[in-house]
């Protein structure tokens, strides 16, 4: 039987020796390469472990909760302003006057400079001439002198059973001795100012029934509210307004619209559909108020309103946003407010609301995001404290020329989305590296490598003691 011998099979003793030496050298190189290989493998695997740990435990992860709307709105319906409906005697839900007929239960008390007119179903019921300007609500009660329209209990409580509208040229201040203004929950009842001046000072304004299901209130056309329109001036101070409004054009709670202006200061608005709302309003000051538990928003300057100042308010526990500027609201200031625990965002600039300054606010603990810029470029966000929200600062859509500086973004599930936060203080948010943990992990890398190398050396020595002559040993 032929068997093959080690190569080279033939040759002189010297040739054989030379060949064996060459083979031995090659094998030695190979063995060394092998030894390097296993150490390289250990290093690579240690690094892989370190990377894996770094991206998992070395990074702060928090669950980025999905936000869901607490309240489902119906589609917006363009309609007449509520005051026109009352004057025309049309039901509050009127969309088109051609399809709607005046109803006699829609009643209004219109206060003019020299008279009070009572209208019902769009018809003048009675005209009450005034000897001079009314000095307060008790004057109106006395002039009307019909408790089915308006009455008072003599203890500061006035109850409206019809709309009370301050017409152009008219002026009304509701203040002491009136402390409670109660509006009956019935169609057409509201407190309005149409081109005139209305001041509420130190008054509790509410419907005659409070509480109930907010979803039903939102579509209940009987819900009373306060509205200023047609360049009116509405000023509210040191008052408490609650359970007002519904989800209908300018009927949200307290509203300034159509060039109106005024202020709300040192007041509380709660359990209304929207705390305050503006629409094509200008120069409205909303300062040092407490908005809470409103169905939708706390403060909602809207549609082409300009120079709205929202300062030093607390807006909390509202159904959606604490403060929202939406639809071309420009030149406003949101300063020193606290927005917290709202079901969506703390502060939001929406739909081309530009040229606004959001400064020195605290937005914390909102289920949505701290401050949101939605398609709203050219805004300034400075020195805000944004903590404990879903996303700290969130920009989407066009957000060119947005300046974000000096803010403190801390403890949010995510520090930001859509914007860089250079120039801000950003700490302890989700999706951020944890330096201490990373230092720990990477410090352990050399130790682990050394340990593995040691274990490998020991294992090899043990193996070598147990093994015999290896296959490719030098001099084989």
């Amino acid at each position, binding site marked *: 039987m032929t068997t093959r011998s080690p*190569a080279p099979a033939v040759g002189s003793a010297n040739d054989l020796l030379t060949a064996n030496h060459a083979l031995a050298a090659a094998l030695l190189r190979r063995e060394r390469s092998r030894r390097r290989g296993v150490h390289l493998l250990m290093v690579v695997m240690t690094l892989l472990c370190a990377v*894996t740990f770094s991206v998992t435990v070395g990074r702060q992860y*928090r*669950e980025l909760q999905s936000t869901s709307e607490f309240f489902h709105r119906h589609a917006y319906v363009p309609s007449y302003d509520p005051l026109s409906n009352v004057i025309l005697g049309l039901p509050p839900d009127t969309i088109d006057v051609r399809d709607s007929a005046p109803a006699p239960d829609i009643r209004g008390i219109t206060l003019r400079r020299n008279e009070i007119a009572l209208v019902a179903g769009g018809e003048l019921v009675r005209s009450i001439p005034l000897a001079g300007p009314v000095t307060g609500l008790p004057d109106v009660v006395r002039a009307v002198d019909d408790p089915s329209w308006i009455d008072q209990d003599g203890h500061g409580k006035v109850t409206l059973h019809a709309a009370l509208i301050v017409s152009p040229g008219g002026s009304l201040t509701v203040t002491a001795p009136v402390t409670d203004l109660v509006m009956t929950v019935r169609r057409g009842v509201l407190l309005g100012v149409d081109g005139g001046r209305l001041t509420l000072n130190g008054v509790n304004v509410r419907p005659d029934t409070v509480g109930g299901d907010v979803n039903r209130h939102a579509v209940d056309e009987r819900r009373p509210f306060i509205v200023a329109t047609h360049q009116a001036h509405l000023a509210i101070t040191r008052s408490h307004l609650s359970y007002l409004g519904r989800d209908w054009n300018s009927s949200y709670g307290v509203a300034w619209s159509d060039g109106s202006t005024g202020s709300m200061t040192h007041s509380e608005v709660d359990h209304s559909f929207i705390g305050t709302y503006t629409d094509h309003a200008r120069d409205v000051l909303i300062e040092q108020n407490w908005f809470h538990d409103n169905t939708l928003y706390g403060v909602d300057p809207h549609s082409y309103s300009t120079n709205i100042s929202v300062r030093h308010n607390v807006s909390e526990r509202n159904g959606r946003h604490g403060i929202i500027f939406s639809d071309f609201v420009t030149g406003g200031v949101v300063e020193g407010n606290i927005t917290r625990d709202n079901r969506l965002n703390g502060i939001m600039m929406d739909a081309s609301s530009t040229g606004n300054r959001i400064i020195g606010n605290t937005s914390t603990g909102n289920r949505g995001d701290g401050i949101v810029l939605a398609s709203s470029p050219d805004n300034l966000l400075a020195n805000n404290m944004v903590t404990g929200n879903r996303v700290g600062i969130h920009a989407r859509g066009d957000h060119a020329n947005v300046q974000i500086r000096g803010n403190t973004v801390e403890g949010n599930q995510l520090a930001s989305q859509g914007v860089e936060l250079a120039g801000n203080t950003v700490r302890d948010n*989700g999706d951020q590296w944890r330096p201490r943990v990373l230092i720990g992990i990477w410090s352990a890398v050399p130790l682990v490598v050394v340990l593995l190398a040691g274990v*490998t050396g020991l294992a090899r020595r043990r*193996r070598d003691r147990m093994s015999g*002559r290896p296959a*490719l040993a030098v001099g*084989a």
Partner: protein
Amino acid sequence: MRTVLPWLLLVAFLRPLMEIFILAAGEWWFHTTFRQNRDLFSRYIIQITTVGREQDRVNEIIREIRSYPMTMDYEIWVTNEPGNGDVYPDADRVITVPTDFSCVAQYKARALEFSRIVRQHLGYDTADTKITFLDDDTSPTWEYLETAYAADYDICQGVTAPRIDYGRGPFAHFLLSHIDDLRFHNCMTYCSSFQGILGRPLFVHGEGLTITGHTERTVTWDWRIFASEDLTFGCNAAAAGLRWGFFHEYIQLTSPWTWKAYFKQRRRWMWGNIHAIVNRDVLPLGAAIRIAIRYFLSLFTFLASGTAVVLILTDVIEVAGWAHSLFWCSLVVWLVNFGLSGWVNAGLRRPGQSSASFWTNRVLQTLAAVVLAPITATFTIVALITTLYMGNPRSFEVIAKTAATSDQRERDGRDGDGRDGRDSRGDQTTAPTIPTARGASTTDDTQRVPSTIGERLR
């Protein structure tokens, strides 16, 4: 569903990450515990088992081995089926399995069993004999043969790598080569760990399987099987308490050349394994469970990870941030695994190939392996399902191993129809004979081999 499902799917996503650690553990184990002692062995047989249709390729393999500076005495045997080419001038012994040889095993296992009996009658069934089995498409490296010989184990094997004509045209072969990237990866991962660390194989490949004569005598090839003889042998060896070893040297093989051949090969493996899994007289229960779980996990990984991707993209399930990062790590590792396969598989330099050509090809094949990873991984599962659907071939269908023989078979229209063994296992009327080794001093051309019945030392 939103809480449990992501975690269930998480496991599927993490498989590549887990596999890389298993691979590393297996590799480390080899480097630190693989024992060698060439003084234990005095005889080395390298056996190429073939139907006979790849005569040129077999001669090429023999010449290749002859060119190695082997450090031990060795013999090259060719075990051949009758009716095809049997001209192997450089082989030490050519064994043509007699048509009337009968045993329980069929096809290739039958041929292997015959060669075992030959060895037994030559007295080569002892612990100092090492036997390495090759197929007619495999080229062992010199280091492979040296390490296999010296390995102080009853049974051992190295790494299969489809390095021969890897990634070369035609396009079907290019793709099929890369589909085999997973094969290399599986071998590196599961052979190294299950064979090396646990001593209980999950995969066994006949290419390069190296055993002692004692092991062959103890286990034999005579099992009621038509395919998966390697898996059956390996698992039963482990069950018999024989020591398994794994070493990191390459046994180089060729990927199929045509899709038809690919499906024939995979169908044979799949149904051979199923047959082995479901029959307790073939595989021990432990091995059967192990291998069944492996199939289940493959299917689960594919389906679960695919489902998870869809569910995550459609926001049906949400994944925690840290888990998301872990998935990305795993994905990167998965792609690196494929890249590694491409790099190793493209590491065989063809004679006369320039350095520039070699390294360019190696880099391109590595990139191709990464880019094609989703396709090749998917196709492996598609093949698994398709071959299940195709049904049991109940035969050992061999495929063409070179481009030339593949073309020839395409022209003849019989690709894969050949068999290593024969269907009929008629009564053994005449005792098989042992072909004499070339140049041996025996006076007769042949030596009588007694009937196999009653001679197995099991």
